[in-house]
């Protein structure tokens, strides 16, 4: 194990310089770190987090994961469209539940819902041979209707009568939409352009329904139910639903961004005000800095010059961990700093110091047995090693399990704790020992 301490010392110095450069503020002359920044979680930056459940009941098992990816793509496109910086859109499958988790920093909960939008399920309905018109005269009649026709949206029933048919034409058949104005009334309208497949379907529908009513619904609400005067073969359609310009724009946008292939339900929503976030950040950073200062004083009082060396190692440890957080932001595995993550980091400082305390206590013991300072230094490190190893491995096991089964804040905590424990083994053992070997050779 006796590597040249000089070599290790230079390695530590190089690493330190590197860590200091990384941790320099991104503004200023050293611009090569400008791509690096701490990724702040919503509890520190403010913003909205939403967990949505994709309703897959109308899809076969095989199509579900594909549909989930499609949902993710649509939501990503919408967040980009609205210019949200650093959105996080993740999918998760839990048992039979298909979920999308969306985190939008700096966006309040109302804006967030506008961005995700409603499901915007566009469908076209037609009458069938068995359809008969619906007349709701009494509450009982309404009950009876709902009982037999529960598979159909009520607004469609009111327009088309019983047993309407939902055609295969829908959102996926749209090529693009735009907002225009009716040349006669001047009212806003949404213009639909179908793909070639969609145009074919639309031509078929209009051909077989000449003289009849076709209902156009969005999210099971009929927005228009025109009578088809003649077959339309061009693949263009217009919805004139008596919109305001704003409504027309919104509808066009949500159709354009790609209709979501499946409806979404909100499972969880969490909005945090930005001022609350920055307050929490300041507080926890202050607490962390104070914690380090306390440990430095404590170690110095307890162990004298050994304590000072351990304190230097501790400061280096902090620098190293912070650089890893910062460096991770340019990799796909970016570590997001959250409140509980910072707590995990501060706790790992405690564990880093523990390794040094173990070693120093052991050195004291060996000294008491009459060994030379140098011998007790080496013995202290080698004999404390097994307990440092075993205790840290069990902490790593805990953080690994936490990461596997935890969500959100628990994961952040586990990750920072694990990184902290790994780096602390390096700083408490290699860094401290090298310093002691090089600087106290008497």
């Amino acid at each position, binding site marked *: 194990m006796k590597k040249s301490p000089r070599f290790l010392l230079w390695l530590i110095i190089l690493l330190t310089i590197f860590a200091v450069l990384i941790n320099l503020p991104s503004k200023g002359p050293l611009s090569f770190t400008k791509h690096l920044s701490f990724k702040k979680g919503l509890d520190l930056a403010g913003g909205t987090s939403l967990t949505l459940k994709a309703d897959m009941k109308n899809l076969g098992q095989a199509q579900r994961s594909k549909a989930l990816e499609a949902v993710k793509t649509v939501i990503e496109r919408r967040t980009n469209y609205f210019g949200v910086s650093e959105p996080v859109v993740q999918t998760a499958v839990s048992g039979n539940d298909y979920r999308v988790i969306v985190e939008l920093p700096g966006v309040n909960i109302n804006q967030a819902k506008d961005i995700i939008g409603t499901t915007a399920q566009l469908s076209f309905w037609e009458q069938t041979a068995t359809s008969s018109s619906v007349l709701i005269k009494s509450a009982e009649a309404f009950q009876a209707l709902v009982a037999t026709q529960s598979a159909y949206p009520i607004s469609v029933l009111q327009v088309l009568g019983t047993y309407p048919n939902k055609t295969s034409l829908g959102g996926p058949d749209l090529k693009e939409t735009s907002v225009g104005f009716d040349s006669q009334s001047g009212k806003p309208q949404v213009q639909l352009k179908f793909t070639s497949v969609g145009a074919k379907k639309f031509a078929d529908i209009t051909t077989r329904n000449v003289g009849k009513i076709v209902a156009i619904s969005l999210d099971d609400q009929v927005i228009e139910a025109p009578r088809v005067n003649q077959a339309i073969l061009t693949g263009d359609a217009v919805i004139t639903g008596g919109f305001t310009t704003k409504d027309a724009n919104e509808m066009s946008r949500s159709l354009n961004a790609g209709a979501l292939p499946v409806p979404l339900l909100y499972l969880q929503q969490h909005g945090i005000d930005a001022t609350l976030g920055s307050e929490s950040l300041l507080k926890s950073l202050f607490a962390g800095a104070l914690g380090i200062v306390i*440990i430095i004083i404590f170690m110095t009082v307890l162990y004298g010059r050994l304590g000072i060396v351990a304190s230097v190692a501790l400061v280096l440890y902090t620098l190293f961990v912070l650089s890893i957080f910062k460096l991770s932001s340019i990799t796909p595995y970016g570590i997001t700093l959250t409140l509980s993550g910072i707590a995990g980091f501060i706790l790992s400082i405690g564990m880093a110091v523990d390794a040094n305390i173990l070693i120093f206590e052991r050195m004291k013991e060996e000294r008491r047995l009459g060994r030379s300072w140098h011998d007790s230094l080496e013995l202290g490190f080698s004999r404390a090693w097994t307990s440092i190893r075993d*205790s840290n491995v069990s902490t790593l096991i805990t953080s690994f399990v936490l990461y596997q089964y935890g969500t959100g804040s628990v994961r952040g905590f586990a990750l920072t704790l694990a990184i902290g424990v790994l780096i602390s083994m390096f700083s408490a053992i290699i860094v401290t020992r090298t310093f002691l070997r090089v600087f106290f050779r008497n």
Partner: protein
Amino acid sequence: MDIIGRKNWYFGLSLLVLIPGIIAILLWGLNLSIDFTGGSRLTVAFKDNVTKNNVELVDKTFKAQQIKVASIEKSNKLIFIRTSPMDQNQNNKFMNELSKEFSDVKEQEFETIGPVIGQETTLNALKAVGIASILIILYITWSFRGVPKPASSFRFGICAIIALIHDVLVVVGVFAILGHFFNVEADSLFITAILTVIGFSVHDTIVVFDRIRENLKKMGGANFSKTVNESIIQTIGRSLNTSLTVILVLIALLLFGGESIRWFVVALLIGIISGTYSSIFNASPLLVLWQELSSRRHSGKRA
């Protein structure tokens, strides 16, 4: 110092802390947050300090909307409200109503968790604790496989886990009591705290066990209880110093870390104090107790 000789006293002291906690757990359980039960949580900030009137008005506004309020608490300029699950529209309506009364009212935080997510969080937490415990027993059993007879590495693992369960019960018990009398909630951060306490507890116990392992190899297993006692005394300085460091850091977090992690830090403090105690006064004395019981049984059989 004879710690092993007085081990029953130390076990007794542990029970003295554990029993009220266990009773509280059985009687009242934990005051679970919406993370586990599902529901909504709001933090509303006022311009001035909150009065009793404000609280009543908030309560009335919810009642008018027929939303069930689980709890309302005030702290300086803030009101924290827990309700049954409500959606964004209901929340907007509430804030609109409220801003009719107060011009400078702001919603700092709004969270809604569906019951499905809540159940899942609970299940995952239990899973995590169970799996972590089993893995740690396995690791200790493996790592201590070389201990000379009469000690067995498996016993080391089990005793570490008993000390761990002790610490978890202490924290959960205290929070059951705090929850009942002071409305302190157990949320997902609480789970994090419990898991950290588990990590720390085992960490502490292993340091003592490691010394027992070393001394057993050196002195042999002839006088097991003396070896264990010696090992505890040799490591007690380290145990206290480490815990003191962590406790100091936690106190810094408690005083300056802000509201949102206050109870998290309290849970850690209790757990780490308990962890230090159990690693010195429970885990290793239990090893001796087990040893004594099994050797008594063996000699009984022979006679």
